């Protein structure tokens, strides 16, 4: 016997409605998924040939969730939705429709039926509009509620056009246009990597790398303790920015080659620059255990230039070491046996938790500029540095402050236990002629 009351059917129906709505309407952003806009879009396309589609995707929001939890993800999306809501009438024309890509929302889909002038959009106009949206969203990520997020939120924005074609089912046309807009940034990036990657490989083949040198200063005496080698691509090319060059080399599979080239250039020049001083040379964690170091090739190079392993400090980035820390314990112990010094770079940027420190047992801890900058007036940074210094002294490592820009920063670092420092306060990176003459 059915014990339901007549009202039960109604309640059941209401629940069904709630289920459908919760599948299509995002709660955190209070925004519908774009399939709810199909009718509106269809109506718009009766009046014009095509509609602009702008796809907005926070690029590193997964990281937000893994670091801060799903509530933070939802709050971030809600914050972005609030900003997206203010785009209309500014970056976006009044008639633009705002939706999310799916529920729960992790990206936005904006439909732009016409330009600011009410006329049909051109490719150039839509591209410009998408670029403006990106600028606005990324500048908003400095405000609440994103200000506390590390890393800074970056936004991928792509665009495409939606048009009607009686041969295809309309809904599928919309999905395809959304996918096309979504994949545009990645397709552009791949194309750029292909072109720039070829250029980078050419640079590596022709060894067109310059080495700049920055002094590492002993804080007590003010004397130059050593020099760190920085590699730069050719002047007036995008490869002049080392971060871009090394990131690209990684994406196009040339990281090992570039690393080797930079290193040998640094070691060759180093003899000239830094007689009786330490050479700090950056190395990728992946090449640390490589045969070049272990087989004696590097020692040969040093001997031929009149230097010994004791003169060389190998620097690896704590960020780059990451999960590889354990596998690097043995090669780094071996290198230390051979006489090389070991420095851990980018210390204090966060996510390592001392794993690299423990495994690599470096002789120097180079504390990141983000901790050093303004440390004289920032008690939290002072506490971070002091904690790092305690860890350093526990393993017998000397502290090096990187990115020192004022005498106050230098003095505070010295007081907190830093032995060495480098930065523009002392001298920026410069070609070897500057230091040899």
């Amino acid at each position, binding site marked *: 016997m059915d014990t339901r009351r007549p009202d*039960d059917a109604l*309640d059941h129906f*209401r*629940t069904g409605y709630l289920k459908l*709505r919760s599948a299509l*309407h995002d709660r955190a952003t209070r925004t519908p998924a774009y399939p709810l806009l199909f009718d509106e879009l269809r109506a718009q396309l009766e009046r014009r040939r095509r509609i602009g589609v702008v796809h907005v995707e926070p690029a590193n929001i997964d990281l937000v969730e893994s670091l801060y939890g799903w*509530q933070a993800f*939802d709050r971030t999306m809600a914050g972005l939705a609030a900003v997206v809501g203010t785009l209309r009438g500014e970056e976006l024309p009044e008639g633009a429709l705002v939706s999310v890509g799916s529920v729960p929302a992790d990206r936005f889909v904006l439909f732009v039926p016409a330009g600011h002038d009410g006329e049909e959009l051109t490719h150039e106009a839509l591209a410009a509009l998408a670029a403006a949206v990106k600028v606005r969203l990324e500048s908003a990520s400095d405000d609440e509620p994103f200000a506390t997020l590390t890393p800074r939120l970056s936004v991928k924005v792509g665009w495409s056009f939606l048009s009607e074609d009686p041969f295809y089912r309309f809904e599928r046309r919309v999905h395809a246009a959304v996918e096309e807009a979504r994949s545009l940034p990645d397709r552009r990036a791949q194309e750029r990597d292909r072109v720039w990657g070829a250029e980078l490989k050419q640079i590596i083949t022709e060894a067109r790398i310059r080495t700049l040198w920055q002094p590492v200063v002993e804080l007590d005496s003010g004397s130059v303790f050593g020099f760190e080698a920085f590699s730069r691509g050719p002047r007036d090319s995008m490869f002049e920015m080392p971060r871009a060059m090394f990131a690209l080399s990684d994406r196009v599979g040339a990281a090992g080659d570039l690393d080797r080239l930079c290193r040998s250039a640094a070691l060759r020049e180093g003899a000239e620059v830094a007689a009786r001083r330490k050479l700090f040379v950056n190395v990728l964690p992946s090449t640390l255990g490589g045969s070049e170091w272990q087989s004696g090739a590097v020692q040969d190079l040093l001997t031929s230039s009149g230097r010994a392993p004791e003169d060389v400090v190998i620097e690896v980035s704590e960020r780059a070491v990451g999960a590889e820390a354990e596998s690097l314990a043995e090669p780094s112990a071996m290198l230390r046996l051979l006489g090389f010094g070991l420095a851990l770079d980018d210390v204090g940027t966060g996510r390592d938790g001392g794993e690299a420190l423990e495994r690599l047992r470096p002789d120097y801890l180079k504390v990141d500029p983000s901790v050093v900058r303004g440390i004289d007036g920032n008690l939290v940074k002072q506490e971070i540095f002091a904690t790092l210094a305690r860890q350093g002294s526990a393993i017998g490592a000397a502290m090096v402050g990187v990115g020192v820009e004022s005498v106050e920063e230098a003095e505070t670092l010295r007081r907190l236990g830093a032995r060495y420092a480098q930065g523009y306060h002392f001298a920026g990176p410069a070609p070897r002629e500057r230091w040899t003459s």
Partner: protein
Amino acid sequence: MSLGRVLIVDDQEDIREMARIVLAGAGYDAEVARSGDEALRLLHESVYDLVLLDIDMPELDGWATLRLLRADEGDDPTRVAMFSVKGDVRDKVASLKEGAIDYITKPFGVDELVRRVGRILHPGGTLGPAVPTASPR
């Protein structure tokens, strides 16, 4: 004067009725729903201070009910405590994650039910010590 309005959601009549009588006797305004469907309607129609929501119900279970309730309400979420015969940790963690503020294992004693509800609705009051409550979001 009522100590608060409580909605008890359970498909089992004996538990539902016992909870209602106990809470009414303790001074609460206690109402019942026999299913998630009915609870969602009642919650849409009026405001409750606390919902006691059974996890194991046929058709719409407690989790689905809670999710749909969250989808249906605004910025001021209703306080929900889950209850279940299972006492496993995973369920407890899940209930906090879904935005429930307590987890009561069945069968519960009369005193315990009154105490738990009192701690949620009157933290720091004479009805019991404050419980740490998870943020409802």
